């Protein structure tokens, strides 16, 4: 149970990994975080989080081909795993179920 727990930043980043697909590597994720969620974090924080996600088995990674921008260095591209997807779904279900139990914020109003 404990292993599957998703932190808030972890969840955001995991979602972004799914969204970015082929382009899901550290710096791009940081940029997406800034653009989409208006959150500025250090590159180190992004790396730390994806590495943690990898350890938990939610993402896998592969080195890409070398690029010129990065001084010939390769990128590490992350892809979400089945258990990662499951964790995301679970988290969403949990939130939806919580939302539905709060009548004051009735979802039906929309």
């Amino acid at each position, binding site marked *: 149970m404990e292993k599957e727990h998703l932190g808030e930043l972890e969840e955001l980043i995991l979602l972004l990994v799914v969204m970015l697909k082929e382009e899901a590597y550290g710096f791009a994720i*940081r940029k997406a975080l800034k653009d989409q969620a208006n959150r500025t974090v250090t590159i180190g924080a992004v790396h730390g989080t994806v*590495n943690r996600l990898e350890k938990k088995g939610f993402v896998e990674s592969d080195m890409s081909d070398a*690029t010129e921008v990065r001084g010939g*260095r390769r990128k590490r591209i992350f892809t979400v795993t089945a258990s990662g997807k499951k964790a995301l779904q679970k988290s969403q279900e949990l939130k939806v179920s919580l939302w539905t139990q709060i009548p004051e914020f009735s979802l039906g109003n929309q």
Partner: protein
Amino acid sequence: MKTLKSNKLSHRLLKLLCRKEYIEEILGDLAEYKEELASKPAWKRKLFYWFHVFNFLQPWALKNIDGSQKLNQYGMFKNYFKTSVRSLLKNKAFSGINILGLAMSLSLVVLMMLFLGEIYSFDDFHENRDNIYRVTSTEVRGNRGAVVKQATGSYFIADQLAQEVSGVGEVLVMTNTFTKLDIGTEDKAVPVDCYYAGSTFFNLFSFDLIKGNPNTVLSLPNQVVLTESVAYKLFGDQDPMGQLLTAEMSGYLQNGATAESDLKNGVVSGIVADPPVNSHLRFEALISLKTKERAIIERSLDHQTNPGYNSNLYVYLVLNEGVKPQQVEEAMFNSLKAFNTEREDNPLIHNLQSMSTFITSDTYHSAGPTFAKRKLLIMLALTLIVLLSACFNYTNLSLARALRRSKEVGVRKVIGASRFQVFCQFLVEAIVISSMALIIGIGLFLLIKPFFLSLPNPSARGFEMFELAISFEQVLYFFLLAILVGLLAGILPALFLSKIQTINAFKNSLQSKLPGKISVKNILIVFQFTMSIGLIMCAVLINDQYNYTLSYDLGYDTEDILTVEIQGDYVDVLANEYAKLSEVEAISKSGWVLGVGGDGLTAGMFFSEDRSARTLSLLNQIDDKYIPMHNIEILAGESFYEPLGRDVAAYNILVNEAFLKELGLGAPEEVLGQQVLYNGEKIRIRGVFKDAVSIGLTKKFLEPMVFIQTNSATDYKALNLKIASNDIMGMLTKLEEVYAKHDQIHPFNASYYEDSIAETYKAEKGTYTIISFLAIMAISISTLGLLGMVIFNTETRQKEISIRKVLGAGIGNLAVLLSKNFVLLILLAALIAIPITLEIVERQVLNSFWDRAPISMMETLSGFFIVLLIGLFTIAIQVQKAARANPINSLGSE
């Protein structure tokens, strides 16, 4: 350049600390981040970048410490740190002494590092810095065969370099000294320091040209590039480009006549940012060299083709990649062959000087700011010595206290600590102390920085050369340094303490096993005292010479004489108006101020009548009031006693004894009425005056001196006023008001003789201040060390002291007992320090003076006495404490 450096540093740091599998993506992402930052200002760029770099140093990214005990290691270091802090707090006196001593020396080291960094970074804003060279000239000049080395070249060699020599890129010719012009518009003018510079100036150098085309701003006659600040002064917010300029020489003389400015109808062709502090060229305006060349052609001078016209021009060049300077030097040598055959045994030799050595060179004379390498090395050596001294304090105190901590080591070893672990523990302790010292040291540095920056440095030639600003990267280096210092100071005690065998640790037999109980410790103490004594002596000796020089009998009266600088032709009018003031007793005019010299100094070549002998002599234009006012002693003949008529040419001179000697003219009485040649004209010797200090005690390169009476107003650059007034401020204001009526361009510059003479010796004053400062540092550090040793000694011998007291010893006996050793050490230090210091001071400092202050016994022993006094005082306080303590307290607890 800079970004590359920081890149490398951060890469190295990350590679060292981060796990291999992550390093590639980390560096890759950082590279992209760097691009994103490119639009931000430099300091922000650096700060953000480094913030991100450090952010990677988190547990997930860091390498594991190798070995089987990796977890344990981390814990151990934490533990070391904790015990270090505890032991620091437990021994507040000792920690305080150590930290304070190290902090003082580290503040000096920080200062030196920044200083070195700034010297090293001089001119680093030029893109071609590594390939820029300057032509230098070496030749023998004058009768005495003095070798003159100047950082100058000629039009001839510049043409050769540009056209005949392969491997040379851009070549630039420019004047090597400022032309002081009053540049302005119809309604206002400001004094401006200008260079005449060739059209390649902005191609070769990377000065920031804000407006104008770098290829053409200096390519036509009369083009002027102003610096931003001058442009603002003249035109305010108006667009300066294309504006017309007037120019007048700032009352400069050439062969007795006011020279006309070569620039007549100037046009502003460009605006350049003010040259940065770390530039060897500083200017307020640049005028196209064509302007000057046109004047040369009009006067049909041969400057442009004569290889011997080599004292007034800088020649810079860029070497193409891969070309060795030696090749070009050889080519220059060959192109001068024809010229040198005529000069026979006195060839002119051109060499190349690399841009990186412009600032530290003391071989070639240049007009820009310099900081001689020799001076730098001395400062560096002294800093290192002070640092070592502080490290020794730490080593000494720790060794001395080893006895007390042996039980701690014993317990650690019994529990299972290895020797290496104990070693690490003590090293960590030393590093903790040195890091704390660094933080205090940086604070101290900030305190002494303004004082240091305000020190006079005559070789800077009036420019500010240093800022001593700390950058973020440098702080990093400082901490590395602190760690290094910690290692240096802590290694000996750590080695010793870790060596203690468990079984001995609990016995009291350790005392005899202290390493070199006599030797090492005592050698370190003697070293410190030698330093302190030596530095104090240096300060005393230099100060003594300084005061001696100030109060030196110049050979003429200077009391109450105020000199006012004149730049223009209004001297007679001004003198008349000043004469009406009641405070002014007498007025005389002169070309320059005796005993001070400075920029206005003039000299000329004099020949004997048959042209068999010649001498370069100082030449001062004076009026008839000058000699009586200064009370200069006339040995033979008569002085000038009446004003020279309007149209009478000056054909009478007064000469000094040295002048007679140089020309071989004979005794003063015999030469009266004899004639000498000056400027091709015959001049009569009217009188002989006694040798007096002409320029200053440090600069007697020319001894012959001539006074000549003149009636040309522009010859006079100084008004000498004999003042009788108690209200100096009021008097100066009055003088200034009158002055301002006649000269609206130049500021009022007046000073008393004593003040201008003191100004002449500001270099010596600067040396004295630095040495005194270092002496205070050294003596504080060694006193701290001594204090530590004495505290330790009295504490460990408390029982012995108590027993002695019980048996009837008085405070006197105790004092002798406790101080005997130290006094012996100080005595030994004095024996070493005194002869060495005398020798060094003699060779390095005082030999530039040609009249020395006598060195008395008192000065020789000054350092010794001061150190002894401070030492005894320190000991006395401790003895007092020990002697007052109740014996029961220390004896009762057994």
